[in-house]
């Protein structure tokens, strides 16, 4: 470990971290934006969901490098290629959680909202989506953490990320650079994860203490169904 390398290359490390964060955060956010309407449709019209799950399983099986390569003719060796690839993978993790979250809203709660005169749209936006938020954010967390880590694979096709430190470190036979890359990816993932935990606390202040503890378990099971990709 050559510690002096780190301050000497600080600006480059920061720039690569920023780029990696962009790829790893924007993609799952786009995935979330696409998942919400699809999830609402799948939660309401049940026949829509099983074929969607099959589709998600098939997409999920595609290795990330192969997906990036398949997107090259259309989008070139650009950020767009990696962002689209990571968006697709994030979608696979987030969409099931949106559906399960919406389905998990208790029937009596929905009936109460209807009895209070809420229309379908108002009920969805002000009752069902807020109650589904913890489960949706659980999916988003998995999507963000794995996208941050997966973005480094994009370096193989030349899209800049912290993966540069791996590949450059290998070519120069310089472990310090690889350690710094690993450290930055993991720290970035953990920081993003913690931010999302904070967002969940702010958005769902009622889900604290005992209620939250009760909510942990189904959420955990949900993440198993669509485990994140790491390569």
């Amino acid at each position, binding site marked *: 470990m050559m510690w002096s390398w780190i301050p000497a290359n600080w600006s480059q490390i920061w720039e690569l971290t920023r780029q990696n964060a962009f790829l790893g955060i924007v993609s799952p956010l786009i995935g979330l934006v696409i998942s919400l309407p699809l999830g609402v449709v799948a939660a309401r019209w049940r026949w829509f969901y099983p074929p969607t799950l099959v589709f998600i399983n*098939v997409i999920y099986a595609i290795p990330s490098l192969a997906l990036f390569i398949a997107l090259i003719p259309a989008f070139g060796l650009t950020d767009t290629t990696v962002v689209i690839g990571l968006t697709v993978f994030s979608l696979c993790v987030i969409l099931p959680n949106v559906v399960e979250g919406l389905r998990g809203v208790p029937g009596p709660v929905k009936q109460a909202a209807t009895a209070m005169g809420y229309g379908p749209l108002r009920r969805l936006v002000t009752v069902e989506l807020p109650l589904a938020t913890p489960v949706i954010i659980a999916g988003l967390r998995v999507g963000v953490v794995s996208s*941050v*880590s997966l973005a480094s694979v994009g370096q193989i096709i030349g899209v800049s990320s912290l993966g540069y430190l*791996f590949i450059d470190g290998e070519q120069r036979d310089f472990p310090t650079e*690889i350690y710094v890359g*690993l450290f930055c990816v993991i720290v970035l993932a953990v920081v993003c994860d913690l931010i999302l935990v904070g967002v969940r606390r702010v958005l769902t202040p009622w889900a604290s203490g005992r209620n939250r503890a009760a909510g942990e378990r189904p959420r955990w099971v949900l993440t198993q169904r669509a485990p994140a990709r790491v390569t």
Partner: protein
Amino acid sequence: MSFFSYAWDWITTDANWHGSGSIPQQLVAHLGYSGLPLLIAALIAIPLGVLIGHTGRGAVFVVNLANAWRAIPTLGLLILLAVYLGFTLFTWLIPLVVLAIPPILVNVYEGVAGVDPGVKDAAKGMGMTPWQQVIRVEVPIAMPLILVGLRTGAIFVVATATIAAYIGLGGLGRFIIDGLANTQYGPVAGGALLVVILALLVLGLFSLLSRLLVPAGLRGAGRDNQ
């Protein structure tokens, strides 16, 4: 030209099917480089997951392990080992085995721990020994999730073995990495398509396995997981 036409042109070129480093050779190599780590990981993770699920000890460890797993950049780990060890059997085998363990372990644990306590009591009440309870009741009931875990592990090793071509491993990833180095898109696209086909075959294999191995009484209930 699109991805598929590049890939198709390259795959249907006769010369790519003969000699050393040909498509059939790398395909078989890729199966070996994926199958061996998966087998070792399964031999470690399945008994361990059953044990943790049955006793409930170590559950927190498994949950945290699975969360940490997602953050690990596989490429970085492979390259780090390659820089220290050079290219040896262990350079690629160790990370593939170690990283294939968490998804299998977590699902096996979840499956076994999630068995209805009433069913476990009934098994005990029928006079089954703890060993019989595990083998004849808990594992069959957990089978859908065990297969999900193995499928996730299999998909993971197929994808990671592709990336391991970067540090010198053979297999279909060779076409991709060498093609990128020579800026030829044909083998890159062809290799990528073959990897996708292989991954989909793995998926098909597991859906077949779940038909064969999941007890008939569970099939309807487990369908949502597949």
